[in-house]
């Protein structure tokens, strides 16, 4: 009896928020989907498998680490103090984004090709992987930070973030991974690379400006 009530309370907490309780399931379907999608057509070529895995892992690493980007500051109330300084908030945001990129984007950009080389990838293929990651990781940070900022203070992390962010990441994933695959196939890749650059430019100019107002709004729970 007591066990049942306690158990119900657990369910209650989860179910209270409606659709939210299905997030883990959606997340599950999503991740299976994305992996299968990637594995599906690359099983013939070792380098391509590696490129795909590196790119996907980049996305997940980014999502998991973005979870904490604003949460801690919001919990201890420093975010509220910060958004009141409307002139300083853009600097703060840029600092935050750049800090995040230095600690996840840069290591990934370096490690990705390194792991590739170690697993027997050709040098120029690894270099191209590095280049796409260099363009891709800041884009990923920007897009992810925007979605994270929208969710600040809602007390729901990981999975919700994932299902909201992953769709945003699809273009950069497709183009970034696409460039590498095309390069490995010795096919022309310039237009895809330009798309990557366009995404980078777009996000890097618009998102830091948008983040200040979004964060201010997020104080209003």
């Amino acid at each position, binding site marked *: 009896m007591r066990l049942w009530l306690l158990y119900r309370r657990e369910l209650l907490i989860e179910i209270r928020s409606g659709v939210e309780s299905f997030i883990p399931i959606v997340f599950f379907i999503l991740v299976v989907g994305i992996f299968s999608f990637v594995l599906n057509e690359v099983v013939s070529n070792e380098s391509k498998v590696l490129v795909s895995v590196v790119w996907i892992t980049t996305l997940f690493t980014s999502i998991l680490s973005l979870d904490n980007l604003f949460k*801690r500051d919001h919990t*201890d109330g*420093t975010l509220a*103090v910060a958004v*009141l*300084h409307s002139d*300083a908030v853009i600097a703060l945001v840029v600092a935050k984004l750049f800090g995040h990129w230095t600690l996840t984007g840069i290591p990934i950009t370096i490690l990705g090709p390194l792991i590739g080389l170690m697993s027997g990838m050709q040098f120029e293929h690894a270099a191209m992987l590095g280049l796409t990651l260099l363009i891709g990781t800041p884009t990923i940070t920007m897009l992810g930070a925007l979605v994270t900022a929208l969710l600040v203070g809602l007390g729901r992390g990981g999975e919700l973030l994932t299902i909201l962010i992953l769709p945003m990441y699809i273009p950069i994933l497709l183009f970034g991974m696409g460039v590498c695959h095309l390069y490995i196939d010795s096919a022309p890749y310039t237009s895809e690379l330009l798309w990557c650059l366009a995404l980078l430019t777009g996000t890097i100019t618009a998102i830091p400006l948008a983040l200040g107002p979004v964060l*201010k709004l997020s*104080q*209003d729970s």
Partner: protein
Amino acid sequence: MTVTDLHCQPGSQELFNGLCLSIVAGEVCELRGPNGCGKSTLLRIMAGLQQPDNGKITRFIEPLGYLGHKFGVSSILTVRENLQWTSTLCGNRLDSHRAREFLEKFQLLSAANKSIQELSAGQKRRCSVICLLIGNYKLWLLDEPFSSLDSSGEELVRELIQDHCRNGGSTVIASHSESRFANANQVELGIS
């Protein structure tokens, strides 16, 4: 700063209906009322952290200093680093002599290099008051600034507020204990 014709209804219950308020330089304004009457909400609205359903708020001076129920200091950083961060945010360099003076005054010198999460509740509050002072704000919005302070800390904060207002600043305080300021402008919020 003036607040005109404020309406706010979070959830089903109406909190304010046509509230008007104006704060002039050198004034201490005390928001008073029982638990849940909307003091914190009003302060957050005045700070701009929350949007009212209706009404107009004019802020003549920005930024303003806000101290909420949360302490507003990074719990993973030390006291000194928090002071530094605040002054960076406000666009000035931390005058280390001044900081030291503050720390001494608030008896935090021995805890200056501890991280905030290792401090006691009262010490955290002291630290956030110092951050407020470092900000050099004209208008202070304080939500129960005396809670979890001991009597010496309380006295200190009270004097600081009076000094602040004597120098042309103004302060809005939410509180429910008896008034600590003789010349305060008392605003009784509606009993819901």
